[in-house]
Each structure stands twice: as C-alpha cells, then as structure tokens.
C-alpha cells in the first residue's frame, strides 16, 4: 500500500503543550497575532549572540540560531509544520517500503539568482554532502545508498528501511544550487556569494562586525514573506539583548528568556513572549566506567535521592518539564513516554545501607572502604545548571553522599566528559551536568548513539555505558521498518534506561522568547526550532 509522507507524519501528530503565561504571551504551537500586534512588518531587527559566518550550510557556526537563519535562504525538500512532514521543494513524497522514496519536485521554482531549480540540483546536493560532511548544517547522507532522477522526479534508495528518513533528513537537507557550488573545493571558505538558495529570504548584506540584512524573495514560489527586511545584529551579552529589546532597538531576542526575567519582561508594555516545548534535555551524568558508578545499585540509589520536580520548581522557577526517567521527551516523535522519577529518600537510604555503605563519623557514607564523596562538574556559563547542581548537592548530602561542585568553563567540562568529541578518548569525571540539544530527540538513530556499547556506534555514549541487552534493543529500534514498531521498541528502551540509570534526566527546559509585539506579532512556534523559523516570516501555501 502506497502511503504519502503526510499520512505517515499524521500518525505521529501530537497535541502540543500550551504554556501561555498571561497577558502578552503567545502560545506554543500556534501562529502569531494572539496579542493583537501587526502580523506584517517592513523591517524587523533580531539579535543573536555571536557571528554566524557566511550562512551557507557549511559555514554557520551554531545549530541554533545559525541553522534557522540558513533555512531562510536555503529550502529543503520538505519541512516540519507542527509535527507533520510537509513537502516544500518537493511536490509529493511517496514510499511503499520506507526504503525507496520517490520525490516529485515542484515545478517553476527558481534559485534566488534567477536560474531554474531542477532534479540535478538534488542529485548534486546529495553527492556534495556525501563528500563534505563538515559544517554545522551539513547532513549525514550516508543512509542514502543511491539517488537517481527521471525528469522532475528523484528517487532515493536507502541502505535499509528508515521510516524516520523524511523527518530526519529531507526536512533538514538544504538543497544547493549545482551551478554555483560545483566549483567549490573548500566548503569552510564558502562566502556569501554562495549563500544563494530557493528560500524566502535573500542575504543582501553581511558584515561580521555588524550583522546581516535579509530581503524578502519576491519570486518565492511556496508562499508570501510577511516581513520585507530582516536585520540580524550581534549582541553577545544576554542582559544587553533584553535591554535593547526594552528600548525598541531590536524587535526580537533569540536568547531564551531566563525564568527570573519572565515576569518582568512579560509585564512590560509592548513586549510579548512566545513559549513552547523545547526538546533539549538537561541531565546529570554518571561515569559508569568509574567505581562506584559502575554499579547499577549505586546509580539507582543516588537517582532516588534526587527530586527532579524540586529542581524544576527551584532552579527553573517552574519553566520546564521534569525529566522522564526514560530520558526520551514525552512529546518526542520517536515515541517518548512519561516514566516518573523514583524519588524516595527513604528508599535511597535503605538501598545505600543494603550496599553496606555505612555513614562515617562525618556523616558521609563509606562504600568499599572509600568515602562516598564525588566531584560534580557544571558549566559556569549556565545559571540553571549551577542552581541545579547546588540543589543536587543538598539532596545527595541528605543521604550521606558528599558532592564537591566544580564550576568550569563549558569547554573545560567537555574536555573532561567528551575529549575531542570522541568517546574513544575515554572520560575523566565522577558526575557531570550535561545537556543534549533538541534534535537528539528527533530520531531513533541519534538516541541509539547515546547508549551503544561499541564506541563506533555509540558515538554519543559519554557515560561509557555498556549493556548487551540495551544494545539488542537499540538494534531493534534502528532496524524496525515502521514507525509503529519503532515506537514500541522505544518504549522498551525507556524502561531499560529508567532501570539502568546511566544518567538522571533532570528536566526539559521550556523555550520562551521575547519580542516587540507592538512592531510585529507574526511569530509562530515550531518544535525543535522555537520562534525563529520560516513560518514566523512566511505565509506558506503548501
């Protein structure tokens, strides 16, 4: 039976969390205009925190907001609208077996320099990404075994069935113009002359010191831009960004509003907030290769001492969702579910007692002849994590486990937890505050990388966890040919994670962004992207 991707995605559609917080707040998952401001604008000024390079898929510096800006210029074949995969440069995407995808391309689309968009551009893009995997928005196209074109129809054959392929790759792979990129040898030096896509906005000005100017693409085939000119300026300091928003010098800040500023900003006249579900996770890692964290009983006992609801209420002032013990976000399209934290101080004490970890004279337990006193690494740049670490220290102290918090530069933490981003290099920590970005929750493949024992497959296994039973589940998860089957396996995996506790999932912080509602109120929330996404700037006719 032939199924369209839209139908596949519809089976995944979920209710979006609505996190409105009073006057001046737009609600996640809905289009803008709720606060009564204009939904059209001549010029918008948006602040980012650092320069994002020349905004080609190989030269943007960050996933957020860099990749979001790249997608203003470059269109992929499909896009996520809410939770649905919707064809964009494609007219239609079909598959019978989740392994061969037939993609009919949209007619009459032009590149921003006036050249016609053709199937050759798609073939070229796949080949180009295969040869050039470096870059923040570069795509790993290795799952694509073969790609061919017949007229205006492209066929992509995968190495094996992958029902997540449209969402994971087709919605993210920016299509490149063959005629401009075929002579590029070194992608790291791609300049703004190559920042030409089919997207709704043209990059017309870039100055590393002063930012970017985008102009609406009048010939855009898939919709009508709602803002004529978008200016993007760089303001490194968080408080300076919010100050500029208050003065009206900028119309939107790409920084997440800190919990302690939510009320003050939300109550200010002319400023609106848009918030919704973010999939980024904050977790506390155990180094499972280092005693006593190599013992599951120890990890379980310590996890029971941590009250994640309290962490959310105190560190985030309630602006987040308590972590599911199974790690996967309950709204993740991979099939997340809620597994409540097993917080129980009495049980934690009883389990530590049962392990023979008696309290010493100083109140600190001693296990296997060594005091249960550990270092907890935390990134000094994150107020939320610093507060969370302080709370965890108190919570573990209550069960006789001493924690020394080491607040370090984020790179210094990474160098200890994930040296050179290569798990084969080992790790040097007891416990560490950590976080995975939202897209990790987007695909089974990435989640599997967090736990596979073999470093070649478990490229994100920063805890050094090894378990044959979990490996078997991961094999099932990544090879299941349908979404329904993958959801079932994901449920089993979450039970295993909640049992093995290689880390404690603390929370998923809510996203909240502030904007000048008196100048523009067309902001739209998009899961995985927040408010800075194409639907905030374009009336699509998909």
């Amino acid at each position: 039976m032939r199924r369209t991707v839209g139908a596949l995605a519809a089976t995944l559609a979920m209710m979006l969390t609505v996190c409105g917080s009073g006057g001046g707040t737009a609600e996640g998952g809905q289009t803008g205009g709720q606060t009564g401001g204009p939904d059209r604008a001549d010029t918008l000024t948006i602040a980012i925190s650092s320069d994002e390079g020349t905004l080609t898929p190989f030269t943007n510096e960050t996933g957020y907001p860099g990749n979001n800006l790249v997608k203003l210029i470059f269109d992929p074949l499909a896009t996520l609208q809410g939770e649905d995969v919707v064809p964009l440069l494609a007219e239609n995407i079909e598959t019978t077996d989740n392994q061969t995808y037939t993609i009919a391309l949209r007619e009459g689309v032009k590149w921003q320099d006036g050249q016609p968009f053709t199937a050759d551009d798609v073939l070229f893009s796949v080949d180009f990404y295969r040869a050039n995997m470096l870059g923040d928005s570069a795509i790993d196209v290795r799952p694509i075994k073969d790609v061919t074109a017949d007229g205006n129809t492209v066929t992509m054959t995968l190495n094996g069935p992958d029902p997540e392929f449209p969402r994971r790759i087709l919605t993210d792979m920016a299509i490149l113009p063959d005629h401009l990129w075929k002579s590029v040898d070194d992608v790291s030096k791609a300049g703004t002359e190559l920042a030409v896509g089919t997207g709704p906005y043209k990059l017309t000005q870039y100055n590393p010191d002063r930012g970017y100017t985008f102009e609406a693409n009048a010939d855009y085939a898939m919709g009508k831009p709602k803002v004529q000119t978008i200016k993007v300026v760089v303001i490194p300091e968080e408080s300076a960004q919010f100050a500029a928003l208050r003065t009206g010098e900028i119309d939107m800040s790409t920084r997440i509003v800190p919990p302690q500023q939510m009320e003050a900003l939300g109550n200010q006249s002319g400023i609106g907030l848009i918030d919704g579900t973010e999939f980024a996770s904050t977790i506390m890692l155990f180094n499972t290769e280092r005693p006593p964290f190599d013992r599951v009983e120890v990890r379980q006992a310590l996890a029971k001492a941590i009250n994640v609801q309290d962490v959310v209420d105190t560190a985030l002032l309630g602006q987040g969702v308590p972590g599911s013990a199974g790690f996967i976000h309950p709204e993740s399209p991979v099939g997340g579910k809620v597994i409540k934290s097993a917080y129980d101080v009495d049980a934690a004490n009883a389990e530590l007692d049962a392990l023979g970890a008696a309290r010493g004279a100083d109140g600190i337990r001693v296990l296997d002849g060594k005091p249960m006193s550990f270092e907890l690494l935390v990134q000094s740049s994150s107020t939320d994590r610093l507060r969370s670490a302080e709370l965890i220290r108190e919570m573990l102290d209550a069960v006789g486990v001493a924690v020394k918090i080491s607040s370090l530069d984020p790179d210094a933490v990474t160098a200890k937890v994930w040296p050179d981003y290569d798990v084969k290099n080992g790790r040097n920590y007891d416990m560490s505050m950590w976080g995975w970005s939202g897209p990790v929750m987007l695909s089974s493949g990435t989640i599997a990388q967090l736990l596979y024992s073999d470093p070649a497959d478990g490229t994100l296994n920063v805890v050094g966890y090894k378990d044959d039973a979990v490996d078997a589940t991961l094999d099932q998860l990544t090879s299941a040919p349908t979404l329904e089957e993958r959801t079932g396996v994901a449920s089993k995996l979450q039970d295993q994670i909640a049992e093995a506790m290689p880390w404690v999932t603390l929370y998923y912080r809510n996203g909240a962004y502030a904007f000048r509602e008196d100048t523009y109120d067309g902001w739209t929330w998009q899961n995985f992207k927040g408010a800075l996404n194409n639907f905030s700037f374009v009336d699509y006719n998909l």
Partner: protein
Amino acid sequence: MTDVQETLPGSTLGRRGSWSYFAGRGLEYALVLAVALTLNFALPRALPGGPMKLFGNPEALARLTAEERAQIASEYGFGQPLWQQFLDYLQGVFTLDLGTSLADGRPVTEAIATALPWTLLLVGTSIVITALLGVSLGVLGGLRRREGKGAGLLAGAIALDSIPQFWLGMLLIVFFGVKLQVLPTFGVSDAGVVTIGGVAEHLILPVVTLTVTGIGYLFMYTRSSLLAVLTSQPVEHAHARGVPRGRLVRRHVLRPALLPVHTILMLDIGFLAAGSIVVETVFAYPGLGRLTFDAIAARDYPLMQGTFLVLTVMVVLMNALADLTYPLLDPRARTGGSR
C-alpha cells in the same frame, strides 16, 4: 618624588651613552617580545578543549573517524607537531601573514584591520577624556589635599576605581537606554548604516564606562606624584625663599609631578586595548576586544594568536614610546641627570 624618578626609564641615559642605551633597551624589548610571542602561541593551546568544535555540531563531529579528524587537524594546521606549528607561527609573524581564522575563513590580518580602528576610536576618545579629567582632578586633589574638596575627590576616585566595568556598563544601558531612551545601547551605528552622527552617538556609553572606571586610578597616581614633589627638598627650599605659590606650582611642581603620569598614561593606552574587552562585549562594540573574546570562546588559534599579538605589540610600543619621549619632557634625562 625620588622613588619614582629613580626607576624612570630615561634616568640611565647618561651612564651608558645614547647608543648603548638604545641598543640595550632594544634588546630588552626584543626579549620581551620573544617571551610574549611564545606565550601568545602557548596560551591558546593550554586552554581546555580545542578548535574542533568549529567544524560542525558535536553530534556530527562524534561520527568522524580518527582519519577524518586527523585530516581536519592537519589541513587547518592544529594537528601538526607543536614545534612545526610554532615555526609556522613565527614565520607568519615576521611576514605579517597571521593565517586565516578557523571560524570564518577570514585572513586574521583582515579581521584585525577591521576591528582595530573601532577600538582605537573607543580607546583613543576615552584616554583623552580620562587623561584630561584624571590629571586635572588629581592636581586639584593634591593641591587641596587638606581641604574638604580634596578629601571628597579622593573618596570619589577610590569609589570609581573599584566599580566593575560590566556592572557600570549595564547600569548605563538600563538608565540611558531603557529608562530615558536617549542613547543607543549596542553596536557602532544603526543596523546597516554607518554615519558620523550614529557612530558618535553609539560611542557615548562605552566611552563613559571606560572613562569613569579609568579615571580613579589616574587621579590617585597624579595626586600622589604631586604630593611627593610638594614635599621634596627643592620645593621646600623654593617655598622658604618666598617664591609665590602660583609660580611655585607652575614651575617647580607640575612639570616634575606630571612626568611619571606621562609614563603611566602611555602604558595605560597599551593596556586599555585589552581592557576594553569587557566594555566591547557589553556594548556589542565590534572592536579588537570583542574579536579577542570571540576568538577565545571559539578556540580559534590563529585569531587568538593574532589578537594577542596586537595587544602585546600595543603595550610594548607604548612602553617604548614612553621611553623615547621621556627625555624630551625631562631635561635631566637628556643630560644624564647632571645639572
């Protein structure tokens, strides 16, 4: 005054002769530069982490094979043996080819050439105002040290000297930008348009921050220098001879008192470029300070080396300039201290 004078750079001129003096000083500066160049190379590499994160998001980097990692490191110059990197770096310094930024592929010299004028404008404006106000108030505070005004100035200077730049910058942004809405709070001009008026307007808050936080130190230095001269023997004698106070101050106090202030001011100019990192970051000012901050955050080795080099050279250059100009201001230095 004697303590200060004995350490002045020009005071040894007569003992060695001018040529040997300049050769000696030249050697000293060469040695300082050599040490600084070595540190500029070593410090970036001593930081935890490395530039690999510039080549993709962490999840993508994690998938790279050892060969692919080695290829990137080798291609971009940070995978070669350290001695080789050091030699390449030294060669680049002497040929003024500082390499390209790992973050955006720009030549480092181009990035610095774009940022430096903004810093010079910011620091230059600030140093002129700081010097005028700091020295004038320092003289006033020294001359009226026994009056309430002098004591008040001293207390004020100590307070200003202890204000953190970040805190003051944010305070000014909130008051003049958010509350009064009379001054812009970031950047060098309105987005996309550079005008003289816009640049001047955007300069005000960062200059005020640098000036206010820099003035206290200069005030106190001038004041203490002035007090040292006022209580020195020649001035006491002149006073005893009945030289009128106005003439005494103009002829016998101000000039010697301001000599060390000149030296400290020159050094300040060199250090201010580095000291503007905080101010440039708070006000999103695209100068050398922010470039340095961004380079450190990104672990962009070539850009870090380049910006460190410029900051080092500025300090050494200003030091040398203070050395060279001192004899012009102090006749004793020209004659080796003999009268």
